[in-house]
């Protein structure tokens, strides 16, 4: 025990003396959260809209007012000629242009109806699509309210609600995903690098020639990272709550337990990587390419799994992050208990055992 504590102490000394490690450990999570929260956002906010009103009557002016009072759009200017649309887009001053046809109000009262044209700058296809959908929604709402008093037979009023994320907040999506990503990155990357560092600097040779058992070496190297990663996971939850108002509806204890399980899994993956990587650089590339990319792309963090080709869906099933994200979303957003996530937990547990066994089996007690 004394031996083990000595090892853990030494490991903490390494961590707190290396600025690079500290930055990755504590800077990365915060940078990532801010990045995803404010920069890589999928939410619509302050989209510049140009208006080309060819009728300038009461109806078109009211519709314009509705658009800008929705909170999603800001005016980028009023156009008078068709050529100005291109200019506006090229100069980047507007993402969308709304065109009201001439005689808008008059046509509104006819059977054929009035026409509005939405022109979007699709060089950024995702936000163009989103802006278009939102604009349509705003306009539909407005014109429906105009018709409220008129009794149209057989009409259907569709009310939709987005459960667990009523306001379509991006933070609800990315906080669980980020937790999965950051924990995987820190645990696997840091452990694989720190173990290969001992190999690269030759200190592993001395550790091996000592009476330390393999499990003492591995546990000693990993324990500090378990503690620090756990601190990290909790930081993300707290930051998500304070800055982006992502709630923890379910049990915080259950969430912590699941985090510990996932951290253990990621650490054993890191140890496994270190058994085959000879240098820190190789370990880093293996962790980044082999773990981070698939975690981002295949875990359902950014791209929905249901839309993937079948083959990639199978691949996503072996991504630990996929199951962890499901668990975290369930606990944080839906507030479900263990009864609804035991299957995912079991999968993670199985993966963890597999990686630990493989890592211990592959860990060499000699140099060759």
């Amino acid at each position: 025990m004394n031996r083990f504590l000595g090892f853990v102490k030494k490991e903490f000394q390494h961590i707190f003396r290396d600025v690079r490690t500290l930055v990755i450990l504590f800077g990365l999570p915060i940078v990532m959260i801010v990045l995803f929260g404010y920069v890589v956002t999928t939410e619509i906010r302050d989209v510049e809209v140009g208006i080309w009103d060819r009728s300038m009557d009461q109806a078109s002016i009211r519709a314009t007012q509705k658009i800008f009072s929705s909170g999603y759009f800001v005016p980028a200017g009023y156009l008078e000629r068709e050529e100005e649309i291109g200019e506006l887009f090229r100069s980047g001053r507007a993402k969308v242009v709304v065109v009201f046809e001439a005689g808008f109000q008059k046509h509104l009262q006819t059977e054929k109806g009035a026409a509005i044209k939405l022109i979007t700058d699709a060089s950024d296809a995702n936000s163009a699509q989103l802006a278009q959908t939102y604009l349509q929604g705003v306009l539909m709402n407005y014109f429906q309210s105009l018709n409220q008093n008129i009794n149209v037979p057989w009409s259907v009023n569709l009310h939709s609600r987005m459960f667990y994320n009523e306001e379509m907040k991006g933070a609800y999506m990315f906080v669980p995903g980020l937790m999965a990503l950051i924990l995987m990155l820190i645990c696997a990357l840091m452990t694989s690098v720190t173990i290969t560092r001992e190999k690269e600097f030759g200190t592993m040779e001395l550790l091996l020639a000592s009476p330390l058992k393999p499990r003492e070496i591995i546990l000693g190297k990993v324990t500090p990272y378990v503690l620090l990663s756990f601190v990290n996971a909790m930081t993300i939850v707290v930051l998500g709550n304070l800055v982006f108002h992502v709630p923890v509806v379910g049990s915080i204890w259950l969430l912590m337990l699941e985090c510990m399980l996932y951290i253990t899994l990621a650490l054993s993956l890191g140890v496994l990587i270190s058994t085959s990587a000879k240098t820190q650089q190789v370990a880093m590339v293996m962790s980044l390419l082999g773990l981070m990319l698939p975690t981002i792309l295949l875990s359902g963090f950014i791209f929905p799994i249901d839309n993937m080709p079948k083959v990639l869906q199978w691949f996503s099933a072996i991504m630990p992050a996929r199951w962890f994200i499901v668990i975290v979303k369930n606990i944080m957003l839906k507030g479900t208990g263990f009864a609804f996530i035991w299957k995912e937990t079991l999968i993670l547990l199985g993966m963890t055992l597999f990686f630990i066994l493989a890592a211990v089996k592959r860990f060499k007690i000699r140099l060759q």
Partner: protein
Amino acid sequence: MSLILDHIDKSFETVQALRQVNLEVQEGELFGLIGPDGAGKSTLFRIMASLLIPDSGRCTMLGHDVVKEYREVRQIIGYMPGRFSLYMDLSVEENLAFYARVFGTTVKENYDLIRDVYDQIAPFRKRLAGKLSGGMKQKLALSCALIHRPRVLILDEPTTGVDAVSRREFWDMLKKIQGEGITIVVSTPYMDEAEMCDRVGLIQKGNLMAISDPASLADGSDARLFSLRSNKGVYAYLDQLRKMEGCRHVWLFGDELHVTLRSAADVNQVQSAIREWADDSLEWKSIVPTIEDRFMELLKEEEI
């Protein structure tokens, strides 16, 4: 017997690192292994330290097989690898405390054993190991290898890259450690250090060639040895001497040539040839061979 190597063979992918190495080291002995880079010294030491498995042959450390009983072996040896292998980002005392704990002991418990070594670096005990000079690093590494009071100390080129004064200090310390009854096996590329050992072995291309005490190694040569020196440099004469019938081996030794002859009678032939070269500063004389000469000679025989 402290250490027994019995017909050890070891190959890596393309090279045979050790060929049929046999060696016995007595308890309490200071044994030196001498050979150039790539001779197989480190491989041999790693086998002794239970870090490599020999392809064939057996190695026992105080009766414990280094392959099967590697756990026991790791308890009783102190190993200092050829490359500085302590933690550069830990201070002197932190490194020492760490290794003490790894071996389940404390610095206090065995302080008397390392006092001589550690006292010299104690003024710098708060300094990071990475910031020590070469000689200090080696003293710290030796302290760490000794801290658990091993019964056999395995030192792989502990004085390489260390200045001459520190080297001498280091060997003085080894002598003291030997006085504590600890067996020491040490390798070195420096010939002059061999004379500090009780016995030495010469190793070249994986062959352990001769084992004897340093003095007998020096005069073990039966061929007579001569040196040739010149103010104008002797390199030009190297090939000419090598072509000569009576010369057995010729090699560069510092700024002179050393020559062994096939028989004592050949000396006349060489001397007359030298006179023909008409170089007044040429100086030809008979000398007493050193270990290095003996070693070079053995190497030459190996090549033929």
